[in-house]
C-alpha cells in the first residue's frame, strides 16, 4: 500500500506540473512568439550587417544605409525581448493566483496535493514557460548564425560571441531572479491589488534601500568614497532584477570593451562573482518563498494582510529611502527632515488605513510611524557618528584582497595601461593597502601631520605635485571596493615600486611593447592584445628612443624576433630589483617603457641587431642654438635646467575635513595672485617613473630660460639624469623641449657637478 | 404503491414501516410477494437508503417480512396479532379519553355500532 501511495504521490507533482502548463497555454504561446521575434531576428540582422560590411569593404563605392534598414527590426526585436522578460512578473502572478484570489482557494487547496508538491510544481512550470522558449530561441539563433556563417564571413562577430554569451547568461539569471522575487513578493499578499503592489514594492525597495544606505554613507563621510562603486558591488547588482539590469549594461558596455581590448580586466572575475551571488540570492528567495508559503493559511487570502511584518517592512524601507534621499540632497537638514516626515506620515497613514480596513485601534498607527522615524534617525545618526559606518576608514585587509587595480591620472608615475591590469601580486596588494591606510590616516588624523606652508609660488622653480588615484579592490568575499584619493606623488613610492617589480607589470609592459611595434606597421587594423599578435603571427617595427625622447633608430622585426624581444624584456624586468629601479640608469626606451642598464637580455637583443645605445652627445641636443665663439660651448635653447626646484602640494585640500581645505581664506597679494599660506605646503620628496610629455607639473614656456650654456659638465649631468625618481627630492630638473623631464638625483657626485656648473657659468 | 410524505412529522422509517403494514392489511401485498430492493425503494421515494434498510430490518425483526440472501425481501405470513397490537393500543387511549370526558360504555358501544353500520356491512367494515 505504501509503495503505491508514494509512487502515486510523486506522480502528483508531475500531474500538477502538467495541469499548470495546460492551464497557462496562452501565456506559453505568447512568450514563444515574443522570443521568436527576439533573438532569432537579431541573429538574422547580424548576418545581414556582416554581409553588408563585407560588401562595403570590398567595394568602397557601395554604400547602404545600414542603420535605416536595421533600426526598425532592431526595435521590434528589442521590444519583443523586453516584453518577454517582463512576462516573468505576469507568469508568477498566474501560477500562484490562488494565493490572492479568494474564489479559487478552495479548488486548489482541496486537491490531493501536498504543499511542497504544489509549490514546486507551480514554480517550475512557470519557470519552464518563462525560460524554455528563451533557450529554444537561443538555439534557433545559433542555428541561424551557423547557417549564415556558411555564406557570410562572420569572423568579426564570432570574436565577440563569448562576451555576448556571458551577457546572455546574465539576462537569463536575471530573468530567473525576476520570476522568483515576484513569487516571493506574492507570498506575502492576499489580494490582487496587494500582489501587484508588492511586486513593484519589493523590486523597487530592495535596490533603493541598499542604494540609500550607500548614499547615506557617501554623503556623510565621503573621503575617498566613490559613489558609483555601489553599481559594481554584487550587494546591489545581484540582489534584485533592477541591480541585475544595471550590471548587464555595465558588463555589456564597459566590461566587454575592457575584456576584449585591454590587458586584464576585473570584469571577468566580477562576472563570476556576480553569477555566484545572483544564483545564491535567487535560491535564497526561493527558499524564503517556500517557507513562507508553507506557513500561510488558506484563510489568509483576502485578509488585509497575510504577514503583518511585511507591510511594516515595506513602510519602514520606504520611509528610510525617502528620508535619506531628502536629507542627503538638501543643505538644510532640519527642513529636509521635516518635509520628509510630513510626506512619509501621509503615506504611512494611507497604508495603515488600507491595512486595517478602517480605523480599528488606530492609535497604534502613529506609534508605529514614530518608531520607524526614530529608527531612521537612529540609523542616520549612527552613520554620522561612525563616519559612514566606518566605511571611509575601512581599508580591506591585504589577505582578503584577491586583486587590485590602480589608476594614477598623471601617467608619469605609472603608465596608463597599468590602470587596466588587475594585480594579484601580494606585494602590490600590500603596498596599495598601506598607501590607502596612509591616505586615510592623513585625513582622519590630520593634525598629526605637519605641512610647511609655502607662501608665494614662484612658477619657475616651483612644481605642483598632485596625483589623483583610483583604486579598485576585488575581495575574496566577492565585493568590489573603490576609492578615489588626491595625494602627493611620494605617497605612491612603494606602490610604484611594488607594481614595477611585479610579474604582472612585466608581462603587461612586454606585451605593450610588442603590440606597439605591430601597430606601428599595421595599416588600418589596430591590434589590441598580445594574444592577437601571437595568433596573427605578425611582425612589427621597433623604435628605440633615448632619454631625451629622440629616436636612436628603428628596426623591423619578424614575428619570431618580436617574440624574442618580448620574452627578453619580460625576463629582464622580472629580475629587476627595487634597488636597480631606484638607482639604475636608463639606457634607452621603447616608447614610454625604459630599458635599464641592468636589462642584459634586452641589450643583448639590441646588440645582435647592431643597435647600441650610446650616451647623449652635444650634437643630439643641439637644435637651433649657436656657437658663442668657443668651440666647446653651445647655447641650447631647448634645454632647461632648474636648480633646487621646490615642490608643493595642497595637503589641506586633499586631506582636510571637507570645509577646511576647500573654502580656505584667500588674500590678494597685489600681484593678481590669490595665495593662501595655509593652502600650499612644501613637500620634500617626489616620485616619477615615466616620461611625461609636458614635463612635470605646470610648465609655462614663459619660464624657459632663453639659453643654457651646454658645457661638458652639463652634458655629464644630462647623461646622469634619469626620468626615474622614487621618493627623493632631486637637486635639479632638466627639461628637454617639451618632451622629456629628467631629474638630477641628490648624490655627492651630482652636487659637485652642479656646483661646478654654476661656478663655471 | 408506496406513499412517503416527506413533509410529514412522522419519521420516514416509521412511515415506511406503517406503509407496508397498511398494504398488507389492505391485501395489496400478499404472502411471499417480493418487496422492492432497498436501492429501488430509496430511489423511487427519494429517501435515504439507510433509512429504508432500517425499516426493512425492523420489519424483519417483527416478523412481517423475511429476506433471502442474494434474492431480496419477501412478505411473511401475515400475523394479525402483530398488526393489530399497535392499533388496538391506540384504541385503548381513545377509549380511555372518551371515558374521561364522561362518555360511558353504552354510548361508546352504540357509537361503535353506528360506524360499522354506516361504513361497512354489519360486522365488518
Amino acid at each position, binding site marked *: 500500500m505504501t509503495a503505491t501511495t508514494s509512487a502515486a504521490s510523486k506522480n*502528483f507533482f508531475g500531474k500538477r506540473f502538467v495541469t499548470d502548463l*495546460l492551464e497557462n497555454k496562452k501565456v506559453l504561446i505568447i512568450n514563444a512568439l515574443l522570443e521568436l521575434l527576439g533573438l532569432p531576428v537579431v541573429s538574422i540582422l547580424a548576418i545581414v550587417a556582416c554581409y553588408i560590411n563585407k560588401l562595403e569593404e570590398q567595394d568602397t563605392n557601395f554604400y547602404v544605409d545600414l542603420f535605416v534598414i536595421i533600426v526598425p527590426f532592431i526595435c521590434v526585436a528589442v521590444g519583443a525581448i523586453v516584453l518577454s522578460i517582463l512576462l516573468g512578473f505576469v507568469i508568477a502572478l498566474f501560477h500562484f493566483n490562488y494565493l490572492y484570489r479568494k474564489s*479559487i482557494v478552495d479548488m486548489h487547496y482541496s486537491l490531493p496535493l501536498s504543499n511542497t508538491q504544489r509549490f514546486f510544481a507551480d514554480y517550475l512550470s512557470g519557470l519552464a514557460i518563462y525560460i524554455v522558449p528563451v533557450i529554444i530561441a537561443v538555439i534557433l539563433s545559433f542555428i541561424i548564425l551557423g547557417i549564415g556563417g556558411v555564406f557570410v564571413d562572420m569572423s568579426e562577430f564570432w570574436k565577440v560571441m563569448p562576451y555576448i554569451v556571458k551577457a546572455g547568461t546574465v539576462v537569463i539569471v536575471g530573468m530567473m531572479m525576476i520570476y522568483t522575487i515576484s513569487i516571493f513578493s506574492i507570498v506575502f499578499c492576499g489580494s490582487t491589488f496587494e500582489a501587484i503592489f508588492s511586486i513593484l514594492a519589493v523590486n523597487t525597495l530592495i535596490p533603493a534601500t541598499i542604494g540609500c544606505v550607500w548614499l547615506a554613507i557617501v554623503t556623510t563621510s565621503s573621503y575617498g568614497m566613490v559613489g558609483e562603486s555601489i553599481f559594481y558591488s554584487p550587494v546591489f547588482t545581484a540582489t534584485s532584477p533592477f541591480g541585475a539590469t544595471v550590471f548587464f549594461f555595465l558588463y555589456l558596455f564597459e566590461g566587454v570593451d575592457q575584456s576584449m581590448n585591454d590587458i586584464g580586466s576585473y570584469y571577468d572575475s566580477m562576472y563570476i562573482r556576480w553569477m555566484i551571488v545572483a544564483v545564491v540570492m535567487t535560491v535564497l528567495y526561493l527558499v524564503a518563498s517556500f517557507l513562507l508559503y508553507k506557513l500561510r*493559511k488558506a484563510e489568509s487570502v483576502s485578509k488585509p494582510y497575510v504577514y503583518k511584518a511585511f507591510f511594516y517592512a515595506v513602510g519602514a524601507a520606504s520611509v528610510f529611502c525617502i528620508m535619506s534621499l531628502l536629507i542627503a540632497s538638501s543643505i538644510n537638514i532640519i527642513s529636509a527632515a521635516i518635509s520628509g516626515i510630513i510626506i512619509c506620515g501621509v503615506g504611512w497613514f494611507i497604508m495603515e488605513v488600507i491595512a486595517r480596513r478602517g480605523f480599528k485601534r488606530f492609535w497604534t498607527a502613529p506609534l508605529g510611524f514614530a518608531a520607524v522615524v526614530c529608527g531612521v534617525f537612529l540609523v542616520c545618526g549612527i552613520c554620522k557618528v561612525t563616519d559612514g559606518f566606518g566605511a571611509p576608514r575601512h581599508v580591506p585587509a591585504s589577505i582578503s584582497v584577491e586583486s587590485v587595480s590602480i589608476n594614477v591620472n598623471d601617467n608619469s608615475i605609472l603608465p596608463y595601461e597599468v590602470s587596466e591590469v588587475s594585480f594579484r601580486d601580494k606585494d602590490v596588494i600590500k603596498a596599495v593597502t598601506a598607501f590607502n591606510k596612509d591616505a586615510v590616516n592623513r585625513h582622519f588624523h590630520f593634525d598629526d601631520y605637519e605641512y610647511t606652508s609655502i607662501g608665494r609660488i614662484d612658477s619657475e622653480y616651483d612644481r605642483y605635485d598632485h596625483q589623483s588615484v583610483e583604486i579598485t579592490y576585488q575581495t575574496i568575499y566577492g565585493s568590489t571596493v573603490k576609492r578615489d584619493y588626491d595625494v602627493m606623488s611620494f605617497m605612491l613610492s612603494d606602490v610604484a615600486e611594488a607594481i614595477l617589480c611585479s610579474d604582472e607589470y612585466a608581462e603587461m609592459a612586454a606585451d605593450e611593447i610588442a603590440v606597439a611595434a605591430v601597430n606601428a606597421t599595421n595599416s588600418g587594423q589596430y591590434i589590441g592584445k598580445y594574444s592577437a599578435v601571437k595568433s596573427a603571427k605578425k611582425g612589427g617595427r621597433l623604435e628605440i628612443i633615448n632619454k631625451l625622447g629622440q629616436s636612436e633608430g628603428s628596426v623591423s622585426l619578424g614575428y619570431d624576433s618580436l617574440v624574442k624581444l618580448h620574452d627578453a624584456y619580460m625576463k629582464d624586468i622580472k629580475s629587476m630589483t627595487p634597488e636597480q629601479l631606484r638607482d639604475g640608469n636608463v639606457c634607452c626606451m621603447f616608447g614610454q617603457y625604459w630599458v635599464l642598464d641592468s636589462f642584459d637580455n634586452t641589450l643583448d637583443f639590441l646588440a645582435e641587431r647592431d643597435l647600441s645605445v650610446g650616451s647623449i652627445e652635444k650634437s643630439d641636443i643641439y637644435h637651433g642654438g649657436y656657437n658663442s665663439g668657443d668651440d666647446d660651448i653651445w647655447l641650447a635653447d631647448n634645454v632647461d635646467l632648474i636648480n633646487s626646484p621646490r615642490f608643493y602640494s595642497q595637503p589641506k585640500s586633499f586631506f582636510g575635513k571637507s570645509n577646511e581645505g576647500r573654502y580656505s581664506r584667500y588674500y590678494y597679494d597685489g600681484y593678481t595672485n590669490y595665495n593662501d599660506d595655509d593652502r600650499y605646503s612644501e613637500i620634500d620628496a617626489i616620485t616619477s617613473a615615466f616620461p611625461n610629455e609636458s614635463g612635470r607639473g605646470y610648465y609655462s614656456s614663459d619660464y624657459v630660460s632663453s639659453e643654457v650654456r651646454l658645457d661638458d659638465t652639463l652634458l655629464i649631468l644630462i647623461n646622469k639624469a634619469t626620468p626615474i625618481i622614487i621618493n627623493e627630492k632631486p637637486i635639479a630638473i632638466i627639461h628637454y623641449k617639451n618632451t622629456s623631464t629628467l631629474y638630477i638625483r641628490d648624490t655627492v657626485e651630482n652636487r659637485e657637478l652642479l656646483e661646478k656648473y654654476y661656478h663655471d657659468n | 404503491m408506496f406513499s412517503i410524505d416527506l413533509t410529514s412529522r412522522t419519521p*420516514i422509517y416509521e412511515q415506511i414501516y406503517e406503509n407496508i403494514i397498511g398494504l398488507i392489511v389492505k391485501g395489496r401485498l400478499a404472502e411471499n410477494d417480493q418487496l422492492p430492493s432497498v436501492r429501488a425503494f*430509496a*430511489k423511487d421515494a*427519494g429517501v435515504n*437508503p439507510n433509512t429504508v434498510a432500517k425499516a426493512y430490518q425492523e420489519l424483519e425483526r417483527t416478523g412481517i417480512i423475511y429476506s433471502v440472501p442474494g434474492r431480496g425481501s419477501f412478505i411473511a405470513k401475515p400475523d394479525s396479532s402483530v398488526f393489530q397490537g399497535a392499533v388496538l393500543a391506540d384504541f385503548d387511549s381513545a377509549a380511555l379519553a372518551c371515558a374521561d370526558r364522561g362518555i360511558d360504555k353504552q354510548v361508546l358501544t352504540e357509537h361503535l355500532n353506528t360506524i360499522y353500520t354506516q361504513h361497512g356491512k354489519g360486522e365488518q367494515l
Partner: protein
Amino acid sequence: MIELKNTVKKFDSYTALNGVDLKIEKGTAFGLLGSNGAGKSTILRLLSGIYQQESGEVLIDGQPVYDNVSAKQKVFFINDETVQFGSFTLKGLKNYYKTYYPNFSEELFESLRKRINLPLNKKINTFSKGMKRQAIVIIALACKTDYLLLDEAFDGLDPTMRIIVKKMLVDAMLDRQLTTIISSHNLKEINEVCDTAALLHNGKIVFSREIDSLKGEVHKIQAVFPKNADGTPAAYLKEDFAATGLEILHFERSQSIYYIIAKGDEDTVRAAFAPKEPLLLEMIPLTLEEIFIYELEVLGYDSNDISGK
C-alpha cells in the same frame, strides 16, 4: 470513518471551533446543521485539507488530513462558490480533476452528462448558476471518492436535478459505501437526504445522532390540565414536571393550554405528566426544523429578542 477529536480552529482572535468531537461512520449521509457562521463550512474545509486546525485531530480513516495526499485523495469537496472555474470548459475541468483522482470513471461522467445535457466544449463561465453546480457535481460523482463533502451544494439545483443527484447518491452509498456530508440550512433537504445529523453551535457540537432517533426523542406536547379547586386555570411551571431522563426545551402556557417541547423517551414523558392528570395530552413528532430551532433556543440563540416577547 471521519473523526474530529477536540478540534480547535481559530481565525485570528475568533474561535470558530472550540473543541469539536465528531464521528461520522462510513456509508452514512450526514447532515451538518448550525446557525449562520456556526462553523459548518469550517469543518468541511478542515476535512478537505484546506484549513489546518490549531489543535486536536482531524482524521479520515485514521489518517490526519492536512497536507496528506493519500487522505485528501479520498475526499471531494464541493463548495458554494460559482465563479471559480472561469475559463475551463467542462471537458477541461473534467480532465483537470481526472488527473488527480485515479478512480475517475469516464463512463459514469458521460452518462451523467448526457442525462442532464451539459455541453462539453463551452466555457463554464457561460453556464447558468445551476448548470455550474451540476457540472461540478457530476465531476465529483465521477471521481468516485470515498467521501463527498457538499457545502450548501443543493442550492441552484432544479428539482429534477435534485432527484437525479439523490438517486446517484443512493447508488454510490450502496455500491461503494460513499459517505456524504452535507452542510445546509435547508432542513427539509437534510431530512430527506440524510440519515444522521449534527448540530453545531458556538463552536461545539450540540448533538450528533441518527435523525430518526432524534425525532423519536423530541416530542411536541399539547396538554390541558384540570382547573384548580377555585375554578382558576392551573398554573404549572416547567419545574413542576422535572424528572430524570426528561429535558424540557420549551414551555409555554396560554390560558389553560400548555405547549411543551420535551426531550426524552415517550414513556418517560407520559409518566412525568400523568400525576397532574391531564385532560388532554397530545404528543406529536417534531420536524427537523423545529428541533433545530428549539435546541438553539435553549442555548440562547432564538428569535425572542426580535419579537419582543
